[in-house]
């Protein structure tokens, strides 16, 4: 390749400048094509399926029917509501738990900083499913938590139960996504120039005032990133509701999974997925507006 390069300097420069304009596209092409074919096309295709009718045996025809949407939304409003309530509660809980933790690691971690961060990401080193199963063991009716409370301490009645309640689902979601909240919060807090906070106290701001007016606003990009990283997967999760919940605590993910895998009802699965995606998109945009986009670029 290189040996066939023209030797005259002008020709070489022309060749190189053409190479310069073509190279980035050549580097991008394989990966971007992959994403176009297997990410963009499926999402478009999903929309087409959502306005189609048919079955796996007869094939699907585009009929511009909105039945999948009207049927899906009227039948599964409760599950959409569950997703919103459980996902939203878990997101707020991860923020309430995660912020003090990230603050402590960033400002008071000292030489334990790396160890603490390592412990925060330790759950990632084991499978998501196994961690959720561990929660089921932990919260079980005769498990390590309820067992002693019932039989040794006698605080709870013998038939007390956590598994199959919304509390167990929310606890599982909160647990599974907490590191996704702590890490971006930590990154944002860590970047804060400590002299800004010192300047605030020099100007007679109380510690609370300095936190409210300096630290917290500067941490907002982390709050934004952490909330999205928690809320989006929590809204679409069906594993926690399946393992820790009951049919009454089904989330929209369980419905989509069931429609898709058990009933092969692709139009309804597509319509529900589409509503979920659009809903999340609208929520994210509204949220970005509320927080103020100029603060988030920092």
């Amino acid at each position, binding site marked *: 390749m290189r040996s066939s390069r023209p030797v005259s300097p002008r020709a070489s420069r022309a060749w190189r400048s053409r190479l310069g304009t073509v190279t980035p596209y050549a580097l991008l092409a394989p990966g971007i094509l992959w994403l176009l074919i297997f990410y963009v096309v499926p999402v478009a295709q999903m929309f087409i399926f959502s306005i189609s009718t048919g079955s796996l045996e007869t094939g699907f025809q585009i009929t511009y029917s909105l039945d999948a949407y009207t049927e899906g939304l009227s039948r599964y409003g409760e599950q959409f509501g569950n997703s919103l309530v459980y996902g939203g509660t878990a997101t707020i809980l991860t923020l309430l738990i995660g912020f003090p933790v990230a603050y402590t690691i960033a400002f008071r971690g000292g030489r334990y900083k*790396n160890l603490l961060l390592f412990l925060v990401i330790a759950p990632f080193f084991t499978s998501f499913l196994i961690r959720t199963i561990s929660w089921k063991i932990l919260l*079980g009716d005769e498990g390590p938590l309820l067992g002693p409370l019932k039989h040794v301490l006698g605080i709870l009645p013998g038939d007390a139960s956590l598994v199959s309640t919304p509390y167990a689902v929310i606890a599982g979601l909160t647990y599974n996504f907490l590191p996704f909240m702590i890490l971006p919060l930590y990154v944002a807090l860590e970047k804060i120039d400590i002299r800004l906070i010192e300047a605030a106290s020099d100007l007679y701001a109380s510690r609370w005032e300095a936190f409210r007016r300096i630290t917290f606003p500067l941490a907002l990009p982390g709050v934004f990133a952490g909330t999205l990283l928690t809320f989006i997967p929590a809204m679409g999760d069906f594993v926690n509701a399946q393992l820790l919940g009951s049919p009454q605590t089904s989330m929209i993910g369980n419905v989509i999974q069931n429609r898709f895998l058990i009933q092969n009802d692709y139009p309804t699965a597509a319509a529900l997925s589409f509503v*979920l995606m659009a809903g999340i998109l609208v929520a994210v945009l509204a949220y970005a507006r509320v927080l103020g986009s100029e603060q988030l670029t920092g």
Partner: protein
Amino acid sequence: MAATVAPQRSTGRLMRALEHRALPVFTVLAIGYLLVPIIVMFVFSFNRVDQSLGDGKFNYQWHAFSLEAWLNPLGWPGLGNALYASLWIAVMATIGSTILGTLIGLALTRYAFRGRGMINSLIFLPMATPELVMGSSLGILFVATALPPLRGAVPTLFPFGISTILIAHVMFNISYVVVTVKARLAGFDRRLEEAAMDLGANEWTTFWRVTFPLIFPGIMAAALLAFSLSIDDFIITSFVSGTQNTFPIWVYGIIRNALPPQINVIGSIIFLVAVLLVASSTLRTGRPPR
């Protein structure tokens, strides 16, 4: 809040007490919350779940200490095959996504070209899409390749199998690889390359002798991330796996009928290997990866 009525000094004292006493305690408790399920996983890998002794088939309650599961970690039908498939898919998806993602990362950090904003959005979107949506939409695409009008016009990817899982894993890994490689390339000193060229190296030699060795740690970090995402993926895989098992799919399928302690053994082994990998790379470079 009490802070608004209390005098300034006592508020300050309260805040200080909060920061010095309450925050560390809270942090330790929160980290405990994160670690408890891992400890439970490890402890229950030593549980005796023996049907002939009346323990049932579910590893939800403690019966007795036993090394049975550790001595026989693949002792359930299908577990070995599922684990093998998971490892194979993870290796292949890691290689594919690392190559594709690194090329994109290189293009984004070292060339000016039209459409950069669009490319950046395309990289960001998969990370912001619920896995459920990616899984179901990709599954529907694969189904559509077996139905008119696509049937015959494109390769048929239905019924699902290893190849559809692999396509999905490469897809969702690419973005993470690009982000990781880009972070590494951002701090790259271009003068090192210029120096190599000044000393007579051509572009090809410069890339392999200077650029590549410098960005290699970033590529390795990206590959490790891709591998761990791939081997653990359940939600997307569940939509495109059909009858093909992976370890998470197998676990999800079996827990309706049984919960063998072998699941905890495999989980513990994966955990220990990952911790050892991170610990060794931390000791080598003096700081944790990522």
